[in-house]
């Protein structure tokens, strides 16, 4: 038999929490649990435990004691707290939540918070995280060890901020690299686990947002990697089960009347998911949600996306007028203008702007897409 790695990873935060309750500090507990995970992968195939979590707790605790052995006074303290009973499910959810807060602590840089969350909450190995983010394992090991040092003074019961946790999970989902580890799926798993530990409208909003975008994944790229814009995606390939789940979670969140930016973004994604064809998209409602979103966040990208939506709802000229109020230095401003110019019947300008946008595109897939748009117009003789 092979080891169920997803089970191991699901158990990780709870086991760290139990070691913490027995008196281990976070950094030592986290190290001990990683060692126990490695041993589980080695031992379980031949000798599967009846109680996987109990096994992990026992082995991780032994690893922790081995590491702490030189410090006799400390060991005495640990043996005393060893008698503490196992926490119940409610306490365990609480431990897990505290771990999310710690790993997304505001004193950490975004990249450190991402790495620490994936390891301590996600149960990924340093090597897996390094591969996912395309850096050497030694570099990732240092990034994680510095992050642990940074939060070493933080009390585990310190009240945390859900918003910082959500930003970290959003980063994992949205800027995931492609490697052996599916970071988008991992972000969804961690957000589900968070939603189970805390009742919070924005956690639900982020989960819905992720599910609704993940549903489109099969249609987002051609087999050769070429980006397919939303309007041209084969909607038959969208995952209807994920959409249904995302919409249901979103509706329950919105009903609580505690609107936040992730719920508003999810609402926009839900309206796209709702349209059987691109032409059936309810752009008027989408513009209304962008207005909500603009009230909730000062992110200028929202206003750029709103201008494009206005172009769909009220015509390209209206979209260009909305765009004209924004800073042309915004990322993707030129690409948005190119799109609206073509819709407004000015292919010559559109082709020029598409080519210009391609030169400043932040990623290869977008650059190729924009270059193809310019080439398409030029080849049609209109440009």
């Amino acid at each position: 038999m092979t080891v169920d790695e997803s089970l191991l990873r699901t158990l990780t935060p709870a086991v760290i929490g139990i070691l913490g309750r027995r008196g281990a500090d976070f950094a030592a507990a986290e190290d001990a649990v990683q060692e126990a995970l490695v041993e589980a992968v080695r031992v379980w195939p031949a000798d599967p435990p009846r109680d996987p979590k109990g096994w992990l707790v026992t082995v991780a605790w032994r690893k922790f004691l081995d590491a702490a052995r030189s410090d006799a006074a400390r060991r005495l303290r640990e043996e005393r707290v060893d008698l503490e009973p196992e926490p119940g499910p409610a306490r365990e959810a609480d431990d897990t939540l505290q771990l999310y807060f710690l790993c997304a602590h505001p004193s950490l840089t975004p990249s450190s918070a991402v790495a620490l969350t994936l390891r301590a909450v996600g149960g990924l190995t340093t090597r897996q995280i390094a591969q996912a983010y395309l850096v050497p394992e030694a570099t990732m090991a240092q990034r994680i060890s510095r992050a642990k040092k940074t939060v070493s003074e933080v009390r585990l019961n310190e009240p945390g901020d859900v918003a910082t946790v959500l930003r970290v999970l959003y980063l994992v989902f949205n800027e995931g690299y492609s490697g052996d580890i599916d970071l988008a799926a991992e972000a969804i798993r961690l957000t589900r686990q968070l939603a189970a530990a805390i009742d919070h409208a924005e956690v639900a909003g982020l989960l819905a947002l992720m599910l609704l975008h993940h549903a489109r994944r099969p249609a987002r790229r051609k087999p050769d990697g070429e980006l397919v814009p939303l309007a041209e995606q084969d909607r038959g390939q969208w995952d209807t089960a994920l959409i249904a789940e995302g919409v249901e979670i979103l509706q329950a969140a919105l009903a609580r009347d505690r609107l936040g930016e992730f719920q508003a973004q999810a609402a926009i994604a839900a309206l796209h998911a709702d349209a059987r064809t691109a032409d059936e998209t309810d752009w008027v409602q989408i513009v209304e949600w962008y207005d909500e979103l603009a009230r909730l966040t000062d992110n200028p990208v929202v206003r750029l996306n709103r201008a494009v939506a206005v172009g769909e709802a009220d015509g390209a000229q209206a979209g260009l007028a909305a765009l004209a109020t924004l800073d042309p230095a915004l990322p993707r401003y030129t690409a948005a203008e190119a799109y609206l110019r073509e819709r407004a019947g000015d292919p010559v300008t559109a082709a020029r702007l598409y080519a210009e946008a391609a030169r400043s595109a932040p990623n290869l897939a977008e650059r190729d897409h924009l270059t193809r748009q310019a080439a398409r117009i030029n080849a049609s003789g209109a440009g």
Partner: protein
Amino acid sequence: MAKYLLLKHYRGAPKGVNDVPMDQWTPEEISNHIQYMVDWGKRLETTGEFVEHYALSPEGTFVRYDGEGRPPITDGPFAETKDLIAGWSVVDVDSYERALEVAGELSAAPGKGGKPIHEWLEIRPFLTQPPTITE
């Protein structure tokens, strides 16, 4: 996080401040220069920002396809080539400002007389993966 390439040029970059050819340094100055760059890389490893570090031979040859069934054709090396890459470092940092900061440190490597060479480094962002959520 974003990756940046820091390019060192043998030729083609603007002249640094302390721009004395390396063969006119003392052996000790050369050792110090190399040690500085090694230490720079090690420091970035401890901050979790180091990706790679490579040096290139100045000797290079051009090569191209020469048609079906024929071996690739080569040309050069061209002694007069304007731009000559000496090597590169790749860093993975949280911001463009941080990339400039670490590049500045690398450019301060000591040269003739133990003084910083103030070498011009070219900094280029990597193209990334497209984000999932764009609308």
